[in-house]
């Protein structure tokens, strides 16, 4: 333990600004792209030249001044659908991820704190559920319950919650073993107080970066399901299903169907860049080294 004089004090805001100023270009690029995506999703109806399911021409029209990216297999405007899909795909993935974090995170912390047989049962069950590959589980569940938006969100959230549970539990176990939690127990504090005041503040930072990674993963899973035709159902626009529905064009050397796929890739790359940077600055430690 060092007994150096207390370090110079900087407010939280100052430190944050200093960190942003030093962010690498990849992270800045990621943040700019993410903002653009979010704006597109929020203002889709304003930005899109046509309606989401509006048929405005013949099938597979080429790029033109009126139809920037041409039309799809049913004669709907490609550009408009890409914009609307931002809202659908990002929104649903977001809801599913939030749901998975609320459930998985809560169970994970409580499991770590309780320990004993409750923890054993939950952990073993989650281990077993994780032994079914996520996409396979989703395919199986969707085949039974049918591919509605609500089902999709619940199923994906349930699958992802197992992963979140495992991580939160591991992080929380590290916190639970610290002396300040024991000190709170010795004082006689209740479980709720220990979870919310002592443990949660310490598990939040790693969970925030994990949220970015899980969001990417959920997003890719939903796109994959939509691509396979069991995700978002027509006429809702979705980047994954748009690729599949227009795939014929690819064999003629037309890149249009790849644009929605590129939109997915750009989003996940951006999130990953930002997360990588967040991991670096939080992993570098609040306490210097």
């Amino acid at each position, binding site marked *: 333990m060092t007994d150096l004089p*207390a370090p110079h004090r900087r407010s939280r805001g100052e430190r944050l600004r200093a960190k942003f100023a030093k962010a690498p270009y990849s992270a800045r690029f990621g943040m700019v792209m993410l903002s653009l995506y979010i704006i597109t999703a929020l203002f889709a109806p304003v930005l899109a030249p046509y309606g989401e399911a509006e048929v405005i021409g013949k099938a597979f029209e080429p790029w033109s001044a009126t139809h920037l990216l041409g039309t799809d297999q049913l004669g709907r405007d490609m550009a408009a659908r890409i914009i609307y899909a931002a809202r659908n795909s990002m929104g649903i993935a977001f809801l599913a991820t939030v749901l998975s974090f609320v459930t998985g995170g809560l169970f994970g912390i409580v499991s770590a704190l309780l320990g004993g047989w409750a923890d054993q049962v939950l952990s073993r069950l989650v281990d077993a559920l994780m032994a079914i590959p996520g996409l396979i589980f989703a395919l199986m569940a969707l085949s039974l319950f049918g591919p509605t938006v609500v089902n999709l969100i619940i199923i994906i959230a349930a699958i992802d919650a197992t992963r979140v549970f495992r991580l939160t539990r591991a992080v929380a176990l590290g916190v639970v073993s610290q002396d300040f939690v024991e000190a709170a127990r*010795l004082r006689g504090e209740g479980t709720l107080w220990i979870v919310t005041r002592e443990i949660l*503040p310490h598990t939040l930072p790693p969970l925030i970066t994990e949220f970015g990674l899980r969001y990417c993963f959920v997003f890719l899973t939903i796109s994959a399901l939509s691509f396979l035709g069991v995700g978002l159902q027509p006429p809702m626009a979705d980047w994954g299903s748009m690729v599949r529905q227009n795939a014929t064009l690819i064999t003629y050397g037309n890149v249009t169907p790849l644009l929605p796929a590129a939109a997915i890739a750009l989003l996940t790359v951006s999130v990953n860049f930002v997360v990588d940077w967040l991991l670096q600055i939080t992993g570098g430690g609040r306490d210097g080294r």
Partner: protein
Amino acid sequence: MGADPLLHIKGLRIEGLSDGSWRPILRGIDLHLARGEVLGLIGESGAGKSTLGISAMGAVREGCRFADGEIRFDGQDLIALGDEGCRPLRGARIAYVAQSAAASFNPAHRLIDQTIEASIQHGLLTDGAARAEAVALYRQMQLPAPEEIGFRYPHQVSGGQLQRVMTAMAMLCRPDLIIFDEPTTALDVTTQVEVLAAIRSAVKTNGTAAIYVTHDLAVVSQMADRIMVLRHGQVVEEAQTRAMLAAPTQEYTRSLWAVRKLNRPNQPDAQALLTVVGASAAYPAGPEVLRDVSVTVPRGRTVAVVGESGSGKSTLARVITGLLPPVAGTITFDGTALSPTLAGRSHDMRRRIQMIYQSADTALNSRQRLSEIIGRPLSFYHGLSGAARDRRVAELLEQIELPPDFADRFPQELSGGQKQRVSIARALAAEPDLILCDEVTSALDQIVQEEILRLLMRLQDEKGISYLFITHDIATVRAIADRVVVMHRGAVVEQGPKAQILSPPHAPYTRLLLSSVPEMDPDWLGRLLELRSRG
């Protein structure tokens, strides 16, 4: 100090990267070392002693850099040679012995393969010759079964033996210089004696020069011909060992062993506050770690529980707190029987027994401000809130000698000693009758230790609090205890008033323990070894 020193360091500056900027670690050090000479580097944590030791290999740790100065080893400029250029010297002519042997041996390889690796990689010995040499050195280091111990993996060998294997590894290429980086700090005192003896005889026999880095003045006085005191990356004082021990010229050097002079005078006996009778305890599905332990803590007095790692002294504290209910035995507190479990105790009973931990880093929640850390027991036990609570927090901060505006700081903005003070304030906030102190000073530097011990004693005088003080350090026992309990392998060896326990006649284990504590006398180790060899 001859005309041609083995190692000559001039104006050395090393910087470390912290929070994005380079801060000085060493601020212009001059050092010279003759062939066969042993130099002790001593200082508190953060003094730069380890950095200086490593620099003698032309190396810096990750995140550090040479800023200025030169390091000449046998005429070669190590900084100019660069990291790769110094590589052939390392392990061959300059060897290194690390603090934790258990962590510094590769768990995947046998000890002998690691011992001889450098000699073979540098092309100095053939495989057969290196193996024979290793066994000879194991024997010289007085390791048991020297022919076979090398075929073991690190996890199969005890810490004290590993440290001797590591010294043998350093010796194998017959280096001109060995850097010992706190080689016995992680060991128990009784083990430390064996390792010190082995290192000293090996260095003497082979005529190797050494730099011995440590924070323990008593240890360094056994090992070094000359001592250099470092502080904040600068040399405070440098002298021959005996001269420095006899007459340190600097105030700072004198303060380094002040704690050893602290000695609490005898106090009249007092009524029992806590009585533990016949307590035995075991962890779930584990062996018994506490066997039939009976201890009494008088009101307003300090009972020191002393023992080495694994003696069960911390388990005793867990039993008293109720975290580990004993399998047998009773605990009485202030005349009433205490429930064995934490849940079975009343709110007020939990308030009256508080605990302070060894590491304030993990004992204080780094996401809470001091006002919350100290204020929570005030609200929880005494129902204080708002301005009344803030006032009381300020009072408590004053009692632990911290300014009141620290209330809105986070623990990580404090130094190690300040953090431990906050732990004390948190315990005080409950207004307890008994505080369990679990190695509360062992992670701190000597000077800070003394401050904390003085604070604890002052608080005891003012408030009549009782302490159960768990420690492995005899100097600390001498400093604060009224009564002493000696523990070994889960049982009490002997107990009684401090004057009685610390003066002869002793129980055999107590004698071993007390005699193993290094003294500030260069002849102590030699005398002890002679005494022990005579039986």
